């Protein structure tokens, strides 16, 4: 939440570097970074919930999956559909799912909330796994990527790795900018108040449930954006994208990067996917060091990566006890 000047400078540098990637590296890295940027969108959407509204959802992958499946299910089988309507349709489906699930889960709080979000995501998993809706455990293929046309010309070819890369980069930056703006608005301040002291917010006259539901729905829609893009990238979806491991991973990304900072969530996504890839090349049992890393992280670095500069400064004695969530 503290988008200070050094942070902003760092972000601009990072985005510039990212923009240069397709010009200097091989296709393998384009694809890897595209995946990472899609995860960054996913993580930022969850950070809105966790870091700014105080809602720890352990079922966020449900909305990622709903949008991914929505794309494949609404797109005609032997023809490419247009992004202009499939993307909104997919995001709308995810938002709708979030709205409905939100109506149930927001009746709970604290530990209950964590558990019921997990349970509902599991329900979504079973819907895709057991019903004929999505091809069951085998999954479904997307044979033709959506097209992006303007005045009859195909301006972006989604099956071209570089085109797709830049599209995702632009979308990631847009999502970041959108969320930053939102968080500066009265609505955003109210969300942060709800995270800080929900009891007082109610006493002050805020209809807290409505704000939480709005946040939950918006987060779901943005998770849907990530899911849509992911389906475009792989051309394939199966119920595993809604598994609770995915929900756990994205939550981990948010914490790893430092919840409540937004750029931390994106950083966490980068760090996590890179870590995963690195470990996977070393051993097939990469989940073991990953699990150990998580345990150590929680024990020793509770503020995540984004807290490292702060801790460093404190170590050097140039900063005293910081204020926590501050809306500026």
């Amino acid at each position, binding site marked *: 939440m503290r988008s200070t000047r050094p942070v902003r400078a760092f972000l601009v540098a990072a985005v510039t570097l990212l923009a240069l990637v397709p010009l200097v590296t091989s296709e393998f890295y384009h694809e890897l970074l595209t995946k990472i940027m899609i995860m960054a969108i996913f993580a930022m959407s969850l950070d809105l919930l966790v870091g700014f509204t105080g809602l720890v959802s352990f079922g966020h992958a449900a909305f990622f999956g709903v949008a991914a499946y929505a794309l494949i299910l609404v797109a005609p089988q032997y023809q490419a559909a247009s992004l202009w309507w499939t993307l909104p349709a997919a995001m709308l489906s995810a938002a709708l799912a979030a709205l409905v699930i939100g109506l149930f889960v927001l009746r709970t709080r604290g530990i209950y909330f964590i558990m019921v979000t997990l349970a509902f995501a599991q329900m979504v998993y079973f819907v895709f796994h057991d019903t004929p809706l999505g091809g069951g455990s085998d999954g479904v293929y997307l044979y033709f990527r959506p097209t992006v046309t303007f005045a009859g010309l195909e301006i972006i070819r989604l099956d071209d790795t570089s085109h797709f890369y830049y599209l995702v980069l632009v979308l990631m930056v847009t999502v970041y900018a959108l969320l930053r*703006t*939102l968080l*500066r*608005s*009265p*609505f*955003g*301040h*109210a969300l942060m*108040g709800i995270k*800080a*002291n929900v*009891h*007082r*917010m*109610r*006493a*002050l*006259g*805020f*209809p*807290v449930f*409505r*704000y939480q539901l*709005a946040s939950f729905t918006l987060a779901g829609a943005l998770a849907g954006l990530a899911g849509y893009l992911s389906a475009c990238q792989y051309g394939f979806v199966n119920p595993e994208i809604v598994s609770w491991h995915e929900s756990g991973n994205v939550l981990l990304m948010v914490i790893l990067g430092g919840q409540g900072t937004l750029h931390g969530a994106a950083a966490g996504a980068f760090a996590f996917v890179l870590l995963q890839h690195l470990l996977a090349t070393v051993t097939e049992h990469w989940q073991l060091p990953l699990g150990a890393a998580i345990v150590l992280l929680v024990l020793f670095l509770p503020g995540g990566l984004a807290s490292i500069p702060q801790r460093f400064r404190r170590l050097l004695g140039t900063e005293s006890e910081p*204020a*926590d*969530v*501050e*809306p500026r």
Partner: protein
Amino acid sequence: MSSRAEHAAHEALPPSDPVLVARGLTRFYGGLAANRDVSICLERDRLHAVVGPNGAGKSTLINLLSGEVAVSAGSIELEGRDISKLAADERSRRGIGRSYQKTNIFPGFTVFENCRLAAQSREPHPLRIFSDALRFRRVCDRARQALEHAGLAARASATASALSHGEQRQLEIAMVLATDPLVLLLDEPLAGMGAEEAERMLDLLKSLTPHHAILLVEHDMDAVFAVADVVTVMVDGEVLERGRPAQIRASARVQQVYLGHGENDHE
């Protein structure tokens, strides 16, 4: 007190209109009645104090009026309309403001943001998602005014958690003021304050009495007698006696209650 003041202290007040009327409030916790058949009327421009020993049910009463706790029986009317079924946030929007005995602020935010958020509750603008919250003039002005009224203008940019206890109590009040309520339910605003700070708080309360209907729950009897227009004494969840401060002070029953429960009851 001069004889004229003494006379005035015994006089009945000129009539005023009732703003918040509660009848027969009862609240059970398991088998225990925290409040039994409590009625109270808050009138415009009046400060109504509620006193009583520990466990008298004063906090429960405030919770019932603010909507944070549901009544087991009884009715509550705000300006003639029944609000007993309304939730706390709805009651707040209708004009009931409440401060807490145990400071209940946003510790991580600045003092200004605490008040600004409170003021925002009156003009929430939830759909203006592209506008910076700090640009909403009226909201910010209202916050600043509340801070000034509560005497905290100088500390606006401090982090709330860095405030002294007394300053935090001031912030408690400032936040309620920022919501511009008609009814003020104040739960022991003087709790833990030093003599000077308490003096300032009392002046603030006196200045607030016109235009508001105030319910003041307090332990400090001298403070109460200095500012209250009406005093209700509660014991064991029920109303023992009600009247002008001088009447209550002179009442034998009340004295017995305080002697029986121990003088100078402190938390």
